[in-house]
């Protein structure tokens, strides 16, 4: 049969195609498995703790309805733990306000100073300034706290929000400067200059293009700074005594609860605040949810660009392919096919 070689060739092609399909299938399956596995890990890592604290807060709330405080709480039984938390610790409200104040002021200061420094560094790089920048990012926060606690004491700013603002501003400004510089590295200086040649003044080019591009990214950076201050406890513990931030307050509350639960401690020593039995874990759960609320809201509601920015994911338009003028893969395919048709 003269179809032999042709048939053989076609058989080889078929086998090759089948092999490729099989490879693609296996790749797809492997990808799916990895995807589900990753999702499960993320669920456990993020969802697990969230569910745990919420569960303890809710379940711990239930016995409180009968025991303490009495009847008016019936309509609020689901959030009894949170309510009780504020009833027992009215300073939590002050702590919350203090934390918000510190976070906002630090974010504003760091943004102003850091963005200016970052802009200057990106347009006139200096190797000497790289070292302080790197040190600012590498040195532990405790170092800043310890290094600044004594001077703050000497000028009367210890245990005051203003002192915290000063301490937090130093690393936050460095962080903002660092990120701003990296952001502006994606916008070469000659881009703006070339727009000047089209007849726009430097201010208008800056406002219409550079600032327009930078603004949303700086906003994301500011929120990141605020969340960092909201979450931070170690420095706040050292630098506050009677005016703690929310996180420092919660650390102290945790210590009290642990004492009440009998977790260690010298014999004969009693906790300074008496908490009704059974409420301890519920209050801790409630406190933890309070602390996790802003970051969780940011995660859930702020959207992909914000998360990409915080995670350091390069935007597609600023990727190496974009910068080099390489079209995305799908554009290449469509162009090739249209050229073929032409």
């Amino acid at each position: 049969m003269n179809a032999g070689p042709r048939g053989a060739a076609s058989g080889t092609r078929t086998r090759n195609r089948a092999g490729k399909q099989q490879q693609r299938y296996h790749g797809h399956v492997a990808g799916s498995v990895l995807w589900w596995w990753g999702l499960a890990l993320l669920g456990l890592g993020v969802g697990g703790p969230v569910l745990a604290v919420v569960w303890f807060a809710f379940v711990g709330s239930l016995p409180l309805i009968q025991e303490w405080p009495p009847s008016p709480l019936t309509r609020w039984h689901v959030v009894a733990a949170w309510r009780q938390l504020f009833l027992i610790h009215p300073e939590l409200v002050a702590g919350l306000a203090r934390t918000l104040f510190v976070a906002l002021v630090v974010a504003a200061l760091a943004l102003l100073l850091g963005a200016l420094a970052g802009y200057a560094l990106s347009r006139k790089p200096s190797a000497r300034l790289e070292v302080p920048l790197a040190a600012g990012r590498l040195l532990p926060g405790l170092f800043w706290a310890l290094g600044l606690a004594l001077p703050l004491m000497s000028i009367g700013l210890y245990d005051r929000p203003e002192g915290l603002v000063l301490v937090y501003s130093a690393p936050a400004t460095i962080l903002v400067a660092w990120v701003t510089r990296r952001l502006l590295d994606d916008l070469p200086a000659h881009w703006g200059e070339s727009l000047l040649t089209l007849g726009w003044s430097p201010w208008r080019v800056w406002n219409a293009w550079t600032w327009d591009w930078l603004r949303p990214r700086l906003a994301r950076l500011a929120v990141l700074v605020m969340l960092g201050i909201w979450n931070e406890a170690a420095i706040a513990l050292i630098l506050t005594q009677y005016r703690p931030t929310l996180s420092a307050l919660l650390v102290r509350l945790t210590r009290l609860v642990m004492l009440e639960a009998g977790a260690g401690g010298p014999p004969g020593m009693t906790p300074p605040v008496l908490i009704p039995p059974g409420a301890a874990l519920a209050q801790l759960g409630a406190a933890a949810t309070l602390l996790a609320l802003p970051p969780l809201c940011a995660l859930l509601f702020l959207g992909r660009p914000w998360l990409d920015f915080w995670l350091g994911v390069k935007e597609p338009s600023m990727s190496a392919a974009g910068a080099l003028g390489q079209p995305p893969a799908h554009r290449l395919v469509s162009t090739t096919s249209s050229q073929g048709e032409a």
Partner: protein
Amino acid sequence: MAELQELRVAHLSGEYEGRRIENASFQVPAGGRLVLLGPAGAGKTALLALIAGLPSAWGTGEVRVGGQRVDGRPAWQRRIALIPADYALWPHRSVQEQIRFGLARPLPRPTGEPSLAERSGEAAALWQRWLLQLDLEPLLNRYPSELQPDERLRVALARAMLAQPVALLLDDPLARWRQEPPRVWWQMVDRLQGWLASIEIPVVIATTNAQEAVRLGQRILVVGSGRGHQCGSPQELYFEPSSIWVAQYLSPWPLNVWPATVSEELSPQPTHLRLEDGGWELPLSPAGQKAIAAWWEATGQKQRSVLVGLRAEDLAVSTDGSSAPSVWATRVVQLEQWGWTTLLGVVPTAPASPAATPPATSPPPAAEREGSPALAPAPPANLAPAAAAPSPSTRRLWVLTSRDIQLLTGSTCQITISPERVLLFDPVTEQRLAPAPS
């Protein structure tokens, strides 16, 4: 419509991003195209930045548009649009927004021109014209990351032209295409030629590629090491290069540069020169004779060392065995068949002077055969190499010849060149020896 004016640059020197340019001068008429040709780092971008008046470029010299000096003005008042090599398309703006930016130039225009309101009809016409001409209508809602490289160039071009500049500067617009297959690059040069043909203002284009320069420019300024070497049409630069560097940069084939002497011993008048390697003699063209005679007169010396530039494509090859004094007997030591042409590397077979006598007679050394094609057989008996073998110091002469010529490695051939095609250079400055003005 902005009036059409010429761009004139005189003695422009300065620095931009660490690159210097010294004393550049040229003139581009309205609708004319000048290409700055030179290697990377030669100072082309610096020159463009100085002309456009970018804030980070600083320097001295004159930039005139239509006779009016603009070098004292900032970039946004010069109206000389610059498109950088990466086109500067901002990633967060769509094509439409990028182009509109060019159109909506807010600054007042010089006195005598229509106001922005009066220009609304003109702006709409411009918008339509360039959108149509550059076929940008389907791309208006895309972002730079979604564009093909040629589309990005079109967007940058439209943005610049909608700003109605008085001159347009393009910094290596086709750099990205030189990594592509030659066919794609060639087509892109074609397209750019088409776009530029409809631009009525002076256009200055920087490039590193000589072919691009010849195809895009009516005139070329060769730039190297931070200074303008020579400015002229492609033909002028090719036939009358000012220096060895210019001649080498413009030619796609190797330029043979050989030391030679014109002395009274050879002839009482400077009519001939003798190449130091090979001892070949070569008649001088009338222009060459004038140049040497002027030097003899000026210095009182009757001997002049020169460098002779012989283009590979100007040398003629024959195999008829003729033996006139200006015909050089050579042996092929390297043969590269490119398909459409053949490149030969030849060395002299017989000395024309005692000074250049080869040391011994032997077959070509193995090292010389390495470059020859693997399938090239040993030369047949009737084409056996002449007895002379080149000394290690003997230069190889590169000759470009017809693809039909029947030669093998080791075979002999004769080389001739028209005296008019011989280029003479000063051995110290490497500048072309020009005849004294009459």
